């Protein structure tokens, strides 16, 4: 009998040597005449265990990790191909690993289980059931289902998705567009990448449903060039979806049409801002547009356009299949459903954690993360990407929901959590926030373009103990100007991490 062995193929598994591990397993099997089939699955998101090798047995899938090439001979000797679990790297049943078992995976239910580019695998686990349902409904019924779900944009701004779709549906036009914002530029975030690398048909299905909802026949995925693996897998999945009739001019035999294309960005963080992204898709410099008009009214090529994040669109197939109310039964307050959090940086067990809104930051970092990678004391945590505040221990019991975070002057953003131990120099981190804005500002508005350069200079003077008090006052004033005067969130939020350092870690600006 052939044993199925799974070796993940997402960026992190590959970065930790998964290709060499797969090759060595194949070589060992050949030498020993073992009957095995190696499947390159997506990742479960238990990244500290990558490459996580799984062996299918009658009892379920048994995991081993993190596996290095040099471990394989011993693993095979210990009975890897027979699913024997007596080895220091043996993890038991993968589904029973607490990090995974204690999650509430709606969007990431398939991640790591399947071969990401296999249409058959996708269909076997409820794939395209949402699209099937959507094809039986009219526009308004689809939009209503999304409204019932309470889904808010998972890209960071948290705007209600149903309202956005309604606006595009109501806007009369010959041509409308669905644009997927896959410019996941925030440090500490990789959930979008995981969707595209581990379950790409889910995104294709979500975009096709969005197209049916608002009568848009063309979709674009604007993908950052820093994600070569996602680029390759997403293009392969789109090609196969066309061949299988889930894209193109006759969706599932319905006569309805939806075309989809990946467009590559070119290393500009600002193109994650929706209007800048649209400019870039049109072939221009990614300068932000003033709003109004909203992209929902005047978007890509001047037409009504839905611009949604990968995670927002990836939530849609579940909502259509299981119903908006099922999705809304998760979460708290006005933050409904689940939020895929990404735990990164100096963390012992980093990875993807999908939970209903409402768990605390501390639960995430301690129960799931297990503390710092270095074993030293955790000092600061940055939530929500490079424009998010650094939070000290006094803030770690804040519940993970949009309103609770806003109440403490922080943002959840795209759900990225980056941990720092006590060796961090917070003055350096504050300086970097401004420096990052210097490099990445689109330059259209003055507070962001010039304010960030001045910000670096002022922080340098403070760190050099030059007129410290006066310069601290100047920095506070500069931050206010950027927050109030910038055109978009880049300049408007760059001060958040700086202000959080001034407020919570002032001693690091005093040495």
């Amino acid at each position, binding site marked *: 009998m052939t044993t199925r062995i799974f070796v993940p193929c997402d*960026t*992190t598994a*590959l*970065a*930790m040597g998964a290709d060499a591990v797969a090759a060595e397993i194949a070589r060992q099997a050949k030498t020993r005449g073992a009957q095995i089939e190696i499947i390159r699955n997506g990742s479960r998101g238990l*990244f*500290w265990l*990558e490459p996580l090798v799984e062996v299918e047995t009658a009892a379920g899938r048994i995991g081993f990790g993190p596996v290095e090439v040099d471990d394989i001979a011993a693993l095979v000797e210990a009975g890897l191909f027979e699913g024997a679990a007596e080895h220091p790297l043996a993890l038991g049943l993968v589904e029973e690993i607490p990090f995974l078992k204690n999650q509430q995976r709606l969007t990431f239910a398939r991640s790591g289980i399947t071969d990401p580019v296999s249409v058959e695998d996708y269909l076997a686990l409820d794939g395209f059931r949402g699209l099937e349902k959507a094809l039986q409904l009219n526009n308004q019924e689809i939009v209503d289902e999304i409204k019932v779900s309470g889904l808010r944009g998972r890209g960071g701004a948290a705007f209600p998705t149903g309202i956005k779709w309604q606006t595009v549906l109501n806007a009369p036009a010959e041509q409308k567009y669905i644009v997927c914002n896959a410019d*996941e*530029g*925030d*440090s*500490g*975030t*990789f959930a979008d*990448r995981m969707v595209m690398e581990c379950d790409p048909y889910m995104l294709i299905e979500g975009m096709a449903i969005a197209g049916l909802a608002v009568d848009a026949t063309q979709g674009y995925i604007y993908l950052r*060039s*820093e*994600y*070569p*693996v996602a680029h390759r897998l997403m293009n392969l999945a789109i090609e196969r979806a066309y061949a299988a009739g889930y894209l193109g001019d006759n969706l599932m035999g319905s006569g309805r049409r939806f075309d989809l294309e990946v*467009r*590559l*960005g*070119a*290393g*500009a*963080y600002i193109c994650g801002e929706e209007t800048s992204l649209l400019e*870039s*898709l*049109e*072939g*221009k*410099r*990614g300068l932000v547009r003033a709003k109004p008009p909203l992209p929902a009214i005047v978007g890509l*090529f001047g037409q009504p356009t839905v611009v949604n994040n990968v995670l927002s669109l990836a939530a849609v197939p579940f909502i259509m299949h299981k119903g908006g109310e099922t999705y809304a039964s998760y979460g708290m307050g006005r933050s409904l459903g689940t939020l895929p959090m*990404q*735990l*990164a*940086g*100096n*963390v012992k067990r*980093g*990875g993807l954690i999908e939970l209903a809104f409402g768990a605390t930051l501390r639960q995430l970092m301690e129960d799931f993360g297990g503390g710092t*990678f270095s074993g030293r004391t955790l000092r600061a945590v*940055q939530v929500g990407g*490079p424009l998010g505040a650094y939070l000290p221990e006094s803030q770690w019991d804040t519940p993970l929901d949009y309103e609770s975070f806003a109440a403490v002057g922080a943002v959840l953003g795209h759900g*990225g959590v*980056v*941990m*720092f*131990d006590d060796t*961090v120099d917070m003055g*350096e*981190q504050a300086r*970097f926030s401004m420096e*990052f804005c210097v*490099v*990445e500002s*689109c330059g259209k508005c003055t507070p962001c373009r010039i304010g960030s350069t001045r910000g670096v200079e002022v922080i340098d003077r403070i760190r050099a103990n030059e007129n410290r008090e006066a310069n601290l006052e100047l920095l506070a004033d500069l931050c206010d100007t950027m927050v109030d005067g910038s055109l978009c969130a880049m300049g408007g939020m760059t001060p958040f991490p700086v202000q959080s350092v001034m407020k919570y870690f002032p001693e690091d600006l005093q040495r």
Partner: protein
Amino acid sequence: MSGLPQWTPELIQAEIDALKHKPGALLPILHAIQDRFGYVPTEAVPQIGDALNQTRAEIHGVISFYHHFRTSEPGSHTLQICRAEACQSMGSRALEAHAKASLNVDYHGTTADREITLEPVYCLGNCACAPSVRIGDDIHGRVSPEKFDRLVSRLTTRALELK
């Protein structure tokens, strides 16, 4: 040097013609040219402008806006070090210093033997196994200075084997 073909106006035109019909074709065209020749030659700018009915200034403005596009020939390998916060928390500042010192180049520079072009990058999405480095389309995690040296020596060894 990099094993990529030398550009000619005809080859550039072929890339332009294959993509110019697309809505918003400029970025796809620039990507195609850079993928094929390693950079976007200055001489390609008027050609692209003619095809898209845009001025040279407009095309140049786009090329210079995006960090990814370059206008001079890179080394055989492009090596990017992630500078974002997750990597910082795991020692990327020290890694950057080590890389610059051992390769004897600063960011955007190419080593004297034209083997490696060093670039900064802001997030490769491998944040749970930081610090990260990208060489070509391969991403590497948990890169210590020692691992960095091994990766670099493998690159140069491979190049020698080709001779």
